[in-house]
Structure formats: C-alpha cells, structure tokens
C-alpha cells in the first residue's frame, strides 16, 4: 500500500508525518533540528527517501541537512553560499541601493531525475545549485545579474527567491519567483533568465503594469501542462497559458484575492487551490473563518471549502510554501498554519481534519506519495 509522507518545516524544527494511503492514522516524528527555523523540507522525486532541509537562525545562519532514510537520520552538508560574482545592489525598503547579502535558503527544489542535484532559492534573491548531493553550492548568477535586478526590492519577508518550478519533461526549463521582483523563466537550466511578468498588475507600483517589482507570493504548475502556470500574487490570483509570457487575473468570485500559497490538483490540471486571506493589513482569513478555495475551471469560478476547518475565531495565516498535494487516486490536499495545525483532506478538499495540532508556526509543507 502507498505511503504518504508530509514534510513540515516550522519556526522551531521539522516534523515528518506519515500515513498509509488511507490517510486516516498519522504518525508524527520530530522535532528534528529543534529550536531552529526550518524554512523548507523537500524530497527527491528520483530517490524519495532522500530529503533535504533548510535550517536557519539569526544566531548561526544557514545549515542544510540531508537524510537518506526518509527523515530518520540527518547529516549536515555544505552551507557556504557565496555569490559567484561581486554582488551589486538592489532597492532597499527606503528606496536606496542596498548591497546583496546572503541571509538564508527559503526553498530547496530537488532535480526531478538526478538525486545528486538540488536547487536552492535564497535571500537576498539568487538561485544556487548543488550537483554533489549538497556538499557544495554554486550560484547560477545569470538570474541575480539580470538587467532588472537593481530594481528588485524586498517584500516584508525579505528579498527572497521562494518558488522554483522545474518542467519534468524538460528539466532545463525552469521558473522562479521572487518577492518583490516578479517571475522569471529559463530555458537553459538556469544559466540565463527572462522576465515572465507580462500582464501582471500591482497597484502599489508607480506604474502598476511595470515589468518588475511585482510581489509574487507563490506559483504552481501541473507537470502534464507545463505551459500553464498559476500565481498567487500579493493581491490577485493569476494564470498564464504561455509559460509566463502573459498573465490574466482569474480571481473571479474569491472573497479575497490576497493570500500566499497556491497548489494544483495532482491529476486535474485545471483544479487549483488557494487560501483567501483578508488583506495585506490583516494576515488572517476573512470573517475569522478558515476556508480553502477550489476552482475546477482553472480559475475565475471558485468554491469555498470549510468542512472540518474552524469557521469562527480563526486568525491564523497560511504561508507561501505551506500547501501541497499528494498523488493518491483521490488527490489529498494539505496545508499548515501559523497556529501550528496541519490540515489534510483526503477527498480533494471536500472535507478536512487536522493531522497534527499545536506545532510551532508552520513555514512549509511538502508531500511525498511513495508507492
């Protein structure tokens, strides 16, 4: 029978939560790296027992860990993230130029077909790659040296590269997203990049339709349809059908189109999930009711799913990397909250139940479906 493994990064450690394919009984293991912020935990599609974790604190900086036994034991790996060329400047909060400084790894994206290769999206925004299982990291500096980089500016969380999407049919084609710069596409394995922000509109910019400066919160892609991308922006849920060249808003009837994560159903490329949040001023759900929004039409038309979720007095947030799906026949959907709950649905979002409660604030959720 299949195993579903939920990888949870929290503000005070990592947790590995497993169940069989029935997804009724869950075993929680952790905290791993207790006391450290675990920004992200992710598994290798090519070798599922190989897991990667990004742990960090202000005191000690960045550590990268790897497990080769599904999270039971871990080994600290290389943590030297040096920019490949003299770092330039980006725009600081006050509008002045500010030197690029490495702070931490937000997202680890393993190669779909090579267990030794993993990509790291970091703050201040840049993309690194390891091809030796995490021993050493090399910057793919074509992104940070993009002509637009001087105009990139940090969002509230920092100038972070938080989304890395790899086309499984052509791993040289990649997409990344940076807050607050925008989305970028590479066709050559990350060596060179072009903006993928056509049609985006952000009212906080002096020119709302400027190509650079959009605060992309998260992006998602279905592996069977890699030209179609979905985006949760600071405000607006958007869709592109030409690999990010042009976007259109598909917020439709959402109660709020502000939010952080976005995910696509494992088997239905037009079924999309977001979690509406009231606003950028109030980082909690509208009306204090936690509801996932599902579109079965690739956007525009959304239904709110709250069965089993708290429908009153709920003031948690769901962060950008904290929602994922499994690949069981009936797709499961998972998300973690800043209140320390991880909720799961084994029926595509129709109903929900917590699989663990009272964790530290959840920073990230990934799910592995292991045959």
């Amino acid at each position, binding site marked *: 029978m299949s195993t579903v493994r939920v990888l949870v990064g929290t503000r005070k450690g990592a947790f590995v939560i497993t169940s069989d394919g029935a997804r009724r009984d869950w075993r929680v293991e952790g905290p791993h*790296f*207790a*006391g*450290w912020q675990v920004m992200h935990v992710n598994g290798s599609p090519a070798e599922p027992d190989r897991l990667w974790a990004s742990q960090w*604190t*202000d*005191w*000690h*900086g*960045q*550590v990268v860990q790897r497990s080769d036994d599904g999270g039971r034991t871990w080994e*600290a790996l290389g*943590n*030297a993230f*040096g920019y490949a060329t003299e770092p330039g400047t980006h725009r600081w909060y006050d509008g002045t130029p500010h030197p690029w400084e490495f702070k931490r790894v937000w997202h680890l994206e393993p190669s779909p077909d090579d267990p030794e290769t993993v990509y790291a999206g970091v703050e201040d925004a840049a993309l690194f790659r390891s091809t030796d299982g995490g021993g050493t990291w090399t910057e793919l500096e074509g992104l940070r040296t993009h002509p637009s980089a001087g105009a990139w500016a940090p969002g509230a969380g920092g100038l972070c590269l938080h989304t890395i999407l790899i086309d499984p049919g052509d791993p040289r084609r990649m997409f990344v997203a940076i807050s607050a710069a925008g989305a970028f596409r590479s066709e050559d394995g990350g060596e060179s990049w072009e903006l993928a922000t056509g049609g985006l509109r952000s009212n906080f910019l002096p020119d709302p339709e400027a190509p650079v400066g959009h605060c992309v919160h998260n992006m998602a892609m279905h592996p069977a349809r890699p030209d179609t991308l979905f985006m949760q922006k600071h405000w607006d849920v958007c869709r592109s059908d030409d690999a990010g060249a042009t976007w259109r808003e598909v917020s439709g009837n959402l109660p709020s189109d502000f939010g952080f994560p976005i995910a696509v159903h494992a088997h239905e490329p037009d079924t999309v999930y977001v979690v509406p949040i009231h606003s950028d001023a109030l980082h909690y759900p509208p009306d204090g009711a936690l509801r996932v929004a599902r579109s079965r039409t690739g956007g525009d038309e959304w239904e709110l799913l709250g069965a089993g979720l708290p429908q009153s007095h709920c003031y948690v947030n769901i962060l950008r990397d904290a929602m994922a799906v499994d690949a069981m026949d009936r797709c499961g959907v998972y998300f973690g909250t800043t209140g320390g709950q991880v909720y799961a649905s084994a029926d595509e979002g129709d109903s929900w139940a917590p699989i663990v409660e009272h964790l530290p604030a959840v920073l990230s959720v990934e799910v592995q479906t292991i045959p």
Partner: protein
Amino acid sequence: MSSVRVALPAHLRSLAGIGSEVVVEVAGAPTIGSLLDALEAAHPALAGTIRAHAAGPRRAYMRYHACGEDLSFAPDDAPLPEAVARGEAPFTVIGAIAGG
C-alpha cells in the same frame, strides 16, 4: 599543543552532536582564530555558524567570553587567556540575548 575547553550554545551542540563542552587540540600558542580553526576542523558542521566561512568575521549574534572577560571584539590573533590555554577555564561561545 594545547587542549582547550570550548562551551557552545545549545543549537550548536545539537548540530555538532557534542556535549556541553568539547576539548579542542590547538597547535602552538592558541589564539581566538586558531581555536576556531581547530574547532571547525574537528566539527565541520560548525563552519559558518559562529563566524563567516573562511575565517570570516564573527556572526553578529555570537559572543566570546572567557575568564569573566568579553573577548568578542578582540582580534583573531589575540592570545587566549592563560587559564583557557591551560585548559583550566573554558572559552565560551554564547548567543546574544535577542529573543526567540
């Protein structure tokens, strides 16, 4: 060769898999820099977590204490206090009190 006792904060003890104190063998007259070199060589997971890689500057939230003195701002080539060099007192790496 000096046997120098080093006390580390909890997060680094768990990272390196060591107890509350670790003894580090340091060649020659031990200095802050040579002690940290030897510590990182013995426990590679600590590289970059106390000071920047390649013997770079102390991380902002790290402090060095020994024999009742704050050595955080002493140069890397400053000799360790005699009692630390003789293994009679520990060199303490401690995190700044900054919440969390």
